[in-house]
């Protein structure tokens, strides 16, 4: 998930944060309704279109996806071998391709592989959708969303500062790693104990630095009047516009349609 806000003025940018959150929820439901990879592919394609619309930074996105490839492959393999034929409704899905072990054990089912593909597409779809959401929503809007949802202000403040400090802490981490490398720390010791031990020189300064930073952050916040009242001036009042109502209706229609297709027509299952 990319967290920085991407300035722009598309419809998605202008939508109310509550509409976007609702849309995101709708997308999640949609993606969990269907098991058939074809349907998932359609969903991913649609979110992909949204992503293109807001001009998602493709390279950064790829940087995020590429390390996941081994996980993707292992998920497909896992589901392929672990889902028994009896789990599937359709005959074609129940077909066993081959057995991994002698004596007809650990069979690879067609349905299993398809299910694996669905999982992957679901993951991808969610990554795209959440990226679209975060890229088009400012932190302030998120805070206001929390406020509207009656989340205590302390918690929303905590979350927003946590997000603000991710890049700062990441920089700290890099500096610590370099400082320790320069003292000859090796990060490839064998075994679980070894690897934990080799990360202590990183973790301890990291904790200490975080605590020091938190300390001076709390001072800085008090210095600037935080905590005097439990509320604060909202930068932009949230208000539903016609486009929000339109979008919400669209999501509702889509969801109803999907539920009809899935449960009445019984499509999209494996």
């Amino acid at each position, binding site marked *: 998930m990319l967290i*920085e*806000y991407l*300035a722009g003025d598309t419809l998605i940018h202008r939508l109310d944060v509550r509409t976007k959150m609702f849309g995101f929820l709708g997308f999640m439901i949609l993606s969990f309704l269907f098991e058939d990879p074809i349907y998932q592919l359609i969903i991913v394609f649609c979110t992909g279109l949204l992503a293109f619309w807001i001009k998602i930074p493709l390279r950064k996105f790829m940087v995020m996806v590429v390390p996941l490839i081994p996980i993707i492959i292992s998920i497909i393999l896992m589901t392929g071998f672990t889902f028994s034929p009896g789990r599937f409704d359709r005959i074609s899905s129940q077909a066993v391709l081959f057995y991994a072990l002698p004596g007809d054990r650990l069979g690879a089912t067609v349905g299993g592989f398809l299910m694996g593909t669905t999982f992957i597409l679901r993951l991808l779809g969610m990554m795209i959708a959440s990226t679209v959401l975060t890229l088009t929503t400012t*932190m*302030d809007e998120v805070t206001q969303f929390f406020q509207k949802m009656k989340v205590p202000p302390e918690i929303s403040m905590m979350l927003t*500062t946590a*997000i*603000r400090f991710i*890049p*700062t802490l990441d920089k*700290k981490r890099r*500096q*610590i790693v*370099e*400082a*320790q*490398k*320069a*003292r*000859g*720390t*090796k990060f490839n010791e064998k075994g679980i104990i070894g690897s934990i031990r080799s990360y*202590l*020189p990183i973790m*301890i*300064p990291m904790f*200490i*630095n975080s605590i*020091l*930073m938190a300390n*001076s*952050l*709390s*001072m*800085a*916040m*008090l*210095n*600037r*009047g*935080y*905590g*005097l*009242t439990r*509320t*604060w*001036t*909202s*930068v932009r009042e949230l208000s539903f516009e016609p486009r929000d109502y339109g979008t919400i209706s669209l999501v509702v229609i889509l969801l109803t349609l999907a539920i009809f297709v899935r449960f009445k027509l019984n499509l999209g299952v494996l």
Partner: protein
Amino acid sequence: MEIVENLKTTNSHETDISAHLKHVENAIELNNISYYYPNVVEPSLKKVSLNVEKGKFVLLMGATGAGKTTLSLCLNGLIPQLLEGKLTGQVSVAGKNVGKTAVQSLSKVLGLVLQDPETQIIGRTVEEDTAFGPRNFLVPLEQIKQRVDQTLEKVRLKGYNQRLSEELSGGEKQRLAIAGVLVMEPEILVLDEPTSELDPIGRAEIYETLDELRRKKDLTILLVEHSSEELIHKADEVVVLNQGEIFWKGVPTELFRNLPLLRQCGIKPLPVSQIGWDFYEKGWISFAEIPLDIPSAEGLIRALLPKYGKQQWQQKGQEQEQRIERERERERDLGLGLELDQVHRRNSRLKQEANQSDKNSSVEVRNLIYHYNSEQPALRGINLTIEAGEFVALIGQNGAGKTTLAKHLNGLLKPTQGEVIVEGMNTQQYDTSDLSKTIGYVFQNPDHQIFSATVEKELEFGLKNAGYKGKEIRERVEQVLQVTGLEKYRSVHPFSLGKGERQMIAVASILVLKPMLLVIDEPTTGSDWVGVQTMMTLIRKLNAAGTTIIMISHDMDLVAQFANRVIVLKEGEILLDGTPQNVFSNEQMLLDSAIIPPQFCRLSKQLNDILGHETFIESSEFAAMFESKGTTGC
């Protein structure tokens, strides 16, 4: 000069007024303040009483641990409201009793800017951050917008509203931190070492901002600071703290002319004042004549030279003048600056040396190009040979590539193109952990590496990594503890020590490996003068014992004083390379990369009709121009 004069007159005017209304006009009143941090026997502040008049610019100085930060935390109630401990006495700020007012409410009266801007920026964008304060006070949105724009203009960040705070430079971040408290429109601004982490440009930006603020608005400023050159004529008053007590209070010029007093306070004297003090001791000038800036030092030397100067200098002055004239003509004919010529000569010499494959060279960098990601190259074609035993200073603006180059030396970065050979090892083929046995690298912030529970264990860590065992480890640790003067702290937790000591621990933890080449990145940031001296003495000692030193620094006085070779980087290329005298005499080229040469070098330049092309870097060299015997009466 005129501005300074003007300021002085307005100040004296203000003093007249405030003399009449004294008790009303005090912005800060401290009455018999003592403070003990929790679980500490010694008080951090001892019976401090201090009044700061409204509209004054007061400088708070003193060695590390003198209580400067503690004092500033008392002013807005963070002590005792956030930090516990025992506070006695009374603090009042703009007529408000600090003990009885919440920190948050006080922030409308007194703005406190802390040391590290990184942890004071709360918002993701400049605008979001600046608006944080007024939003807490439920100021209406329209007004906030107006105030944010005004404040950003004041700190010279106009138009930065939508910029991400994370992507600002150090100086910009600090100015944003100042904006964050200014936007609440306080009457008093307290800044705790706002420039300690900044390069000279960043520092100049902050000082200019403060100057502007003072001129435009009736703001009382209390500034905690180590460095002094720029501030002498800006501040109305200096307060020196020493071990929690007010040690001295008065006019800045009074303090900075009195070298023995400065030494007692642990404050760095101005270089030119050292020359003046020398004359004063000889009885040639009065105390008030001790120069604090270059023009007055120049005038003084010119005035004294005919009277007390050695014969040779008077003659030499005339000869040099003629020679310079001739040289200037020659330069004009060639159409080439002399400086550039020198660099070329040096480069070709380096190339020759490289071809000879000299055994003695400690570092060899050939055609080094380095790209971060795929952006602009950070280093573009560096060729460099450093002999064993040299003391090299790497200087240049932030982003010039100093650290990038230094990180190539122990393999933290690998060349995109070209090669780096250190002590006979090509960094491309070795891991940083292997190189760390011969090449020591001390980073700027010691807190990034300290992780053990005692100083002793901290020192052992590197040795264990390098595979040393029992007795060898003990011996080496023992030795280094002695050399660095950390013996008394051996079983103390590193984080219970001050910044200066932690910096020393960081150096010590590298020294145990007995590196042949030591790279030190900014070894003295945030240290007081005594700390700087201790650190530099140690480094010089190491160098004398044969360790090659490469030091990155922004402190030009230190560079001139200690290094025997200075390399100036600019935009990833070597701009100048030579002895400190050579490099610092190229004032114009240095100006382009925002380096201000040390005072002595600038003074030599001013006196070049007498000194010719010679550049002095120590006060003793100037003193040597004069008769050593003192005469009485002036």
